[in-house]
């Protein structure tokens, strides 16, 4: 049963300093246990001793940046909402984790649901919202039930409801299940889905802060981002900013998967090199093998090579090598793996998940898949190198409404850029020395 599932990642003695500091505590998902480790003290502090603007001020001072993918400063995002006008406004929680290689929100929700609930309450108070909606991917059954149970416990204990902690600030938290569409991780597509529609991204402006869920001002934050808030309010924004680098403060929860000995979710201070995450925490490659290629922030973050493991994990250092922090999902592949085949698998993903609204993405994804299939079947010609280039430039530079098109293009662009010899081998010589070597 899930209760007996072994935690893989930061917990117990190896727990991180912020998000996972209590991981490994037995029954952490229960309210009584959460209260014993200081749970809901941040909520009490915010609601009973701070003004909403002071809460936002602490989050700004922390320098926290969104952990969903874009890395936008959280406090600044909160500041975009117009002043309350008496009508409804919403906090919408992006729990639609589906970037390939990313499992950290699942790790937080199933093991530490009250930390998230407390973070949501703090965000609601800061932006003066009385309703929060958690949009959780439909495949997360256990996680849905864990959060629903946590909300019920928090309600019964008086942390939310008509008069949380006796204060006249009603808050309710609702759950909404997704139904299997990667695009819903994109915030405007998520809003369309929450409103019961086909999930196709909206053009902006207006931004969700002004016109979001059901046409009302809306704050969208990711699970990990919100789960960080109780620590920030308890300890202060300045204390949080002491972790990490100046521009990427704090810690983040990385998922490491693929060809490593100890895959898991590891909390690490931003700015530490990926070699620490991949080799020290996740156990490094299997004996006799070496890391050849890795994706630092979900498959949408441009690939890096095994020689680049010392790259620091802050967002600026990743941008300097042409990639990004993305979702924090680190996928590692070793020297047995053909990069062209990996890219083909990822393009199948983007083609499948395209919502079909923008032509470059709808057509480009399938075109790329067909080209990869031809090449991998040994039927490529020199013209296919140019075809890949045409497809990826057609997807790039904001030609689509959302980032899905760009991401698909980056997979082609950066695998070709960094592993051109493998593409040429397949296309011009119809062989794959990598797979031949792995079979030998």
């Amino acid at each position: 049963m899930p209760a007996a599932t072994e935690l893989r990642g930061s917990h117990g003695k190896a727990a991180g300093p912020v998000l996972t500091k209590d991981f490994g505590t037995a029954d952490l998902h229960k309210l009584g246990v959460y209260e014993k480790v200081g749970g809901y003290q941040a909520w009490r502090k915010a609601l009973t001793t701070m003004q909403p603007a002071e809460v936002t001020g602490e989050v700004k001072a922390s320098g926290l940046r969104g952990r969903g993918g874009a890395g936008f400063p959280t406090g600044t995002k909160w500041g975009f909402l117009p002043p309350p006008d008496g009508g409804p406004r919403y906090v919408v929680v992006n729990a639609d984790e589906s970037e390939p290689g990313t499992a950290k929100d699942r790790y937080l929700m199933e093991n530490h649901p009250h930390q998230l609930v407390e973070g949501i309450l703090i965000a609601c108070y800061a932006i003066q919202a009385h309703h929060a909606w958690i949009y959780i991917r439909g495949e997360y059954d256990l996680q849905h039930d864990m959060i629903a149970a946590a909300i019920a416990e928090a309600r019964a204990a008086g942390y939310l409801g008509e008069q949380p902690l006796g204060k006249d600030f009603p808050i309710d938290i609702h759950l909404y299940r997704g139904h299997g569409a990667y695009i819903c991780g994109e915030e405007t597509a998520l809003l369309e889905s929450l409103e019961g529609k086909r999930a196709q991204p909206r053009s902006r402006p207006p931004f969700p802060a002004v016109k979001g869920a059901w046409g009302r001002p809306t704050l969208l934050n990711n699970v990990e981002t919100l789960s960080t808030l109780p620590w920030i309010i308890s300890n202060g924004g300045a204390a949080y900013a002491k972790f990490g680098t100046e521009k990427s403060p704090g810690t983040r929860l990385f998922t490491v998967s693929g060809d490593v000995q100890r895959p898991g979710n590891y909390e690490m201070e931003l700015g530490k090199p990926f070699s620490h995450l991949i080799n020290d925490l996740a156990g490094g490659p299997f004996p006799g093998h070496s890391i050849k290629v890795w994706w630092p922030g979900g498959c949408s973050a441009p690939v890096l090579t095994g020689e680049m493991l010392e790259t620091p994990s802050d967002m600026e250092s990743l941008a300097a090598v042409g990639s990004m922090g993305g979702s924090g999902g680190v996928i590692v592949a070793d020297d047995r793996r053909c990069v062209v085949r990996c890219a083909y698998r990822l393009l199948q993903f983007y083609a499948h998940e395209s919502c079909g609204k923008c032509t470059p993405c709808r057509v480009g994804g399938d075109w790329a898949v067909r080209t990869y299939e031809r090449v991998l079947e040994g039927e490529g010609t020199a013209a296919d190198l140019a075809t890949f280039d045409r497809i990826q430039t057609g997807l790039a530079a904001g030609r689509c409404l959302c980032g899905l098109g760009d991401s698909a293009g980056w997979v082609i662009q950066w695998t070709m850029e960094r592993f051109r010899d493998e593409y040429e081998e397949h296309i011009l010589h119809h062989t794959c020395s990598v797979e031949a070597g792995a079979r030998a």
Partner: protein
Amino acid sequence: MKLSDHTLKEIRELPPKYPHIRSAVMPALDLAQEELGMLTQEAMTQVAQALQVDPGYVEGVATFYSLFHLEPVGKHHLYVCNNLSCQLRGAEELLTHIKQSIGVSEYGQVSADGLFSVEPVECLGACEYAPMLRADHRFHYDLTPATIDALLKEWRGHGDGKKARKEAHPRAGSH
């Protein structure tokens, strides 16, 4: 296949939970699919009537999302993750093994005994336990051909043992 009066009553009770009636469409389709195992044309029409929305709208939603089944599936439908993290850990071999074990040649095809169907899906967000699958509202981790065989045997042992969502996770009710 039509929806029971009980399910239709539950569907009619959904709209007040949401700021707008359209947000009730997917929860209503969930209830329909939970009862019938798939979404039939009749059921979608019934959902539209119960919520007083356009039938074309309901079908438009149902056809967009991959968790809605418009074709029959087995009593136990296996969603096997085969995105990159699981593929690196052997998901393709597992998919082939499952197809052989349940006696189907294509994904989505239902086994002769009606018990199983299998579908490769995109990342299910449990990458540290790769390869993995979801069935009957539960994740199964660290799969090998041997653990697959054990799961299939368990399911064959009690063909009517499909668990409803509420029973799938005793831990969530242990508060």
